[in-house]
């Protein structure tokens, strides 16, 4: 449905902008509340706050960050749905919040078409991670152990990750014991403690991989991982889908197009400005900035939404 919607939106934008306020003239009518859908202090939270700080410094707008984590970002979405669509409220989530999670939860008020996508900031460096030098430090070892009848405990940090673990197992002929833990840090703690054998981590594994403690035995995204360029993609191992995604800002549905353009441009400017702290963090912890806005972002979200529907259908069968 969104595929059909996107060109309409673009057309609407073309028609309205000459008479409406130009994006470069847009200023927020009051202080902006920026909701953060992640626990305070983590990498994603720091990223959001640094971007807000950068925008405040560059544009002089007031941005007040407010924590609203929980329920895979849907808690934030529900709060945002109640906020005015004038650019004074937006929030940071991950792209799967409005695609996979929204569909799986099934609340019609929280679907992708009820929100405006503002801008992505970074792409997941999703890897299938195991302890280096351990029993499962390559995909071949995993399949051999499975063939020998060893139960393999697969840690996941979200429903989508669990579905993808199941799907990958189906395609590879392995019945994993899927263990749902809390966050990428939970996966890594489980690996260290020997409570689980392999697990998805979306980027937090970078330091451990560089130091040789852990290893990416496969990658969940299309492009090679910065730390482990040789890790095979899960699609090469049989999966029909990638386990990709972005950190991104969203706003209430029907956002004033001038506000959308201005906010998107502001986020891009800060994230890509080599002198900003936000940019430094994105390079250090998130594999570099990856900003997508406007129609380009809408088409990515539509595609991800369709993939999520297919994944949910595949697992449901």
């Amino acid at each position, binding site marked *: 449905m969104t595929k059909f919607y996107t060109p309409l939106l673009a057309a609407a934008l073309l028609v309205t902008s000459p008479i409406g306020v130009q994006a470069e003239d847009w200023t927020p*009518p*009051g*202080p902006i509340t920026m909701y953060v859908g992640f626990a305070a202090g983590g990498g994603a939270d720091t990223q959001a706050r640094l971007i807000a700080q950068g925008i405040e410094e560059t544009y002089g707008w007031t941005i*007040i960050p407010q924590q609203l984590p929980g329920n895979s970002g849907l808690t934030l979405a529900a709060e945002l749905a109640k906020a*005015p669509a004038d650019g004074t409220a937006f929030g940071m989530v991950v792209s799967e919040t409005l695609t996979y999670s929204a569909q799986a939860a099934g609340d019609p008020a929280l679907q992708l078409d009820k929100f405006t996508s503002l801008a992505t900031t970074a792409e997941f460096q999703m890897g299938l991670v195991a302890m280096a030098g351990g029993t499962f430090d390559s995909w071949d070892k995993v399949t051999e152990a499975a063939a020998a009848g060893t139960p393999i405990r697969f840690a996941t940090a979200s429903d989508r990750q669990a579905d993808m673990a*199941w799907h990958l197992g189906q395609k590879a002929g392995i019945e994993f014991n*899927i263990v749902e833990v809390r966050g990428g840090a939970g996966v890594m703690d489980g690996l260290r403690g020997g409570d689980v054998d392999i697990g998805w981590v979306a980027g937090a594994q970078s330091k451990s991989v560089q130091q040789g403690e852990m290893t990416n035995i496969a990658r969940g995204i299309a492009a090679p991982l910065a730390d482990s360029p040789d890790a095979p993609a899960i699609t090469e191992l049989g999966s029909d889908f990638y386990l990709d995604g972005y950190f991104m800002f969203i706003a209430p549905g029907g956002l004033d197009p001038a506000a959308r353009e201005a906010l998107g441009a502001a986020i891009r400017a800060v994230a890509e400005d080599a002198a900003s702290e936000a940019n430094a963090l994105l390079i250090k912890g998130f594999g570099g900035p990856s900003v997508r806005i406007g129609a380009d972002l809408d088409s990515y979200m539509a595609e991800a939404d369709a993939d999520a529907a297919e994944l949910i259908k595949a697992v449901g069968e």
Partner: protein
Amino acid sequence: MPRLSFAHGLGLAVIALAVLALILWVPQDTVSGYLLSKRGRVSIGDAMAPGLAFGLMALSGALIFLEARRAEAEIRLTARSIGFLLAILTICLLALGAMIWTGPLAVALFGGEGSYRNLRDTAPWKYLGFILGGTGLVAALIALVEHRLSLRAVGLGLVTVAVLIGVFDLAFDDLLLPPNGDQ
């Protein structure tokens, strides 16, 4: 049969609440039930943990009922206590109500075109509710406990509010005093 004491009643009330929750609340307010089958495996559903917790609560009620024979006669809620609690809660309700509504009301009366949401980080509007509600809370509680309203109590409330504004609002850019974060 010995007369039932307050503690007997407490035990029975706890059991009744726990059973009600087990029959009505837990099954109707959880999606996945006690056990569910997903991705080809059985896993523990969202109702399991609360179900066990309410089971434990029922057990605790039974133990309280059984232990009730042993003394503890003096432990009860008196009408006087409950009256005091209601007085405290009324004060809190009024003070917090003043905190929430003073700002928006002032903007509606004197703020011209602006909305309180857009003025929630602008002095003096953002302080009005907190000053009135906070001072009121402190002064009224002191008056309640000391059985008289004194100017000192109001002064103490004002000083507390001023210090809190200094500590939270003036010292930190990103913090909002009540009720401004809800706008």
